[in-house]
């Protein structure tokens, strides 16, 4: 169950229209390391996670990612809401304009539509948490790349905030992985899959 809170996690107030910038930032909406993939990854993985503290963390980070998705969409929306027909012809936004006008549709900067293959829910706690750690780093690199080429401070400030959150989430997932490992056979973490071979799972994990 979710409830909506009628505010952004971090303010987005962009004064200048720039469809080119929007066409790059859209990758963090529907791209391979974007916020939609992030939230769906964590919110899908959590059900079979053997340790309830880790299931709780996946819920809370997955929920925050939905707030990040909203921030990214707000940035794109504000960069294009006053678009003129001349600006719509800007290279990089013209093709998008034909299919979606100025509405939001999840895709990568390269034009590839959002696809669930951009994340994995593997059903093995070690595998999934290492995927989550990598996902946070990939998103951090994407924000690094965006911040490096976007000069407008109105756009940079929310991107800098989002980049910092990737680092915090990485830290928390690292702690979650250590938590899982502390409940496994210390001589062989791969002796069994804690999400499947339930007869081996210690009661402390549940």
């Amino acid at each position, binding site marked *: 169950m979710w409830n909506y809170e009628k505010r952004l996690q971090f303010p987005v107030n962009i004064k200048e229209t720039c469809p080119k910038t929007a066409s790059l930032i859209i990758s963090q909406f529907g791209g391979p390391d974007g916020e939609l993939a992030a939230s769906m990854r964590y919110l899908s993985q959590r059900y079979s996670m053997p340790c309830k503290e880790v299931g709780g*963390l996946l819920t809370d980070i997955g929920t925050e990612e939905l707030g990040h998705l909203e921030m990214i969409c707000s940035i794109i929306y504000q960069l294009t809401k006053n678009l003129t027909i001349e600006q719509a012809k800007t290279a990089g936004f013209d093709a998008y304009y034909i299919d979606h006008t100025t509405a939001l549709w999840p895709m990568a900067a390269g034009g590839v539509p959002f696809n669930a293959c951009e994340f994995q829910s593997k059903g093995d706690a070690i595998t999934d948490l290492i995927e989550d750690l990598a996902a946070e780093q990939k998103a951090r690199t994407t924000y690094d790349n965006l911040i490096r080429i976007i000069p407008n401070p109105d756009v940079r400030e929310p991107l800098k905030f989002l980049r910092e959150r990737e680092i915090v989430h990485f830290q928390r997932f690292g702690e979650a992985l250590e938590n899982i490992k502390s409940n496994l056979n210390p001589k062989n973490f791969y002796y069994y899959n804690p999400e499947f071979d339930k007869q081996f799972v210690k009661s402390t994990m549940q």
Partner: protein
Amino acid sequence: MADQKALLKQITEVSFTVNDLTLYLDTHPVDENALTAFKQAMEQRKQLLKTYAENFEPLTINCVCPDTNNKTETNTKYAGQKHFTWVDGPLPWEGGNL
């Protein structure tokens, strides 16, 4: 009269504290300093959300109270009329409204 912009900024800041402490406490559930900071931030957030909803639009469904919300009748189509105050205020993605 309460300054809407300043109040919203305070809500954003204290809510961020709550959010970041939530993730920390998920992996450190018995950290006493974090628990104290969480309690303080939650109390502050609750009070700020209440003050904001009394003066302006409610930000959460739990703050909706048509009899007491939006005393200043800011950003509403239904000034002077009893109405569902959840529809008041700007949409968050519009930006620059405050």
